[in-house]
């Protein structure tokens, strides 16, 4: 293996899971996420020589997002009907290796499903920013870089996204008192 490839594997591939998680949440489809991730990694590899800073993860997620947007555009051009908002995301994402806690496992599963569904139903703009802030734990500057908007927009969008998720959550709780804490 040549040196460039080794450096790429050392620097970029550790963020493969983050790229996959982000692609999954953006596309809401395991098949599409696979294609997006593969394309993004190839693009990253081609553009890798230019990368000098330490923001590898933000750089890779920017590319993932661009690949997702390209894929959406292509589907629209082909007259593809987009997935319904309430797309089912239960079909098998591998969980991160949590040590099992038998008492909590089944309750946890239910809550995961509820929240996964609520997140999937959010507009893409909201879903995206919540994933970047709360799951990938990026700061405003990194989120601004990935989503290509000013920091002020990051702040207002994040506030709206959090309020929207909270509102849907409350709605759900009223409808199904046992599904949510």
């Amino acid at each position, binding site marked *: 293996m*040549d040196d460039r*490839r080794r450096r790429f594997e*050392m*620097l970029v591939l*550790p*963020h*493969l*899971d*983050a790229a*996959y*998680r982000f692609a999954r949440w953006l596309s809401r489809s*395991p098949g599409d996420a*696979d294609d997006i*991730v*593969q394309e993004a*990694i*190839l*693009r990253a*590899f*081609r*553009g890798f*020589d*230019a*990368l*000098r*800073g*330490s*923001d*590898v*993860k*933000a*750089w890779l997620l920017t590319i993932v997002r661009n690949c997702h947007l390209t894929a959406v555009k292509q589907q629209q051009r082909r007259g593809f009907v987009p997935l319904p908002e309430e797309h089912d995301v239960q079909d098998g*994402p*591998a*969980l*991160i290796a*949590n*040590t099992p806690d038998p008492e909590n496992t089944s309750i*946890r599963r239910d*809550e*995961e499903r*509820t*929240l*996964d569904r609520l*997140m999937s139903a959010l507009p893409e703009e909201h879903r995206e920013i919540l994933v970047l802030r*709360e*799951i*990938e*734990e*990026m*700061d*405003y500057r990194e989120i601004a*870089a990935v989503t290509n908007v000013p920091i002020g927009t990051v*702040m207002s969008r*994040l*506030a709206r996204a*959090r*309020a929207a998720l*909270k509102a849907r*959550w409350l709605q759900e709780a009223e409808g199904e008192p046992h599904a949510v804490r």
Partner: protein
Amino acid sequence: MRCAESLRVQAYFDGELDALSAADIERHSEACAECRALLEDLEQVRTALRQDVTYASTPPALRARVMRALDQESKVQRPRLNSERLTSWRSRPFWKGAFSGIGATAIAASLAFFLLAPPLTNPLLDDLVSAHVRSLMPEHLIDVVSTDKHTVKPWFAGHTDVSPVVADFAQQGYRLIGGRADYFDHQRAAVVVYQHGAHVINVFSWAATEGSLPENTTRNGYHLAFWKTGNLAYCAVSDTGWDELKGLVQLLQDLGAHDNQ
């Protein structure tokens, strides 16, 4: 109508404010019921997202597919001709291959701001980041799997040269998942492994030598936070947010200070 400070309250919650503005917001939220409620909402949404959302990890089949695609790509980029290159010449005009680097150049140009961070040359930082990345490979993360500090701490006694602070902070969002021995800086360092949401945090500890520790820094997308407690040097490494990493550092420092008394 919403309180005019709500965005600053959110920035405070996200750890984006300097100390002065943070104190300002703390004072404000004592007086403003609306902002206190907002802080509770923010916390609730965060806890739910970090605990109850499914974190997908890359399926092995996709990982294999990506590696194969990289193999192909490395072949294409090599200047020497091979059979595959020759067949592909027939199916597409030669200039397509010749100019396939243009996309990469465009990405490079649009990401020029990533170049601003200066390269760092401290070998300790390299060692720590490499050890962290190595630990993320399958099977390398943990030597002793346990959520119980009474299992992890004695294990270190037999396998490393130091006895670091170990505790489970699951309540605060930092779950103890185990420990590991790592060899660097000419000694057997102890590594305590935590999980925070979707992220792994490795806390390295080794016998502190003379001289100061490096400043907190970010390298290859990983944050490194350094501190000393007693005669031990610590470094927490992760791709969590800074604020989240510092949260764990604070907990460990408080506990270390308590133990030393």
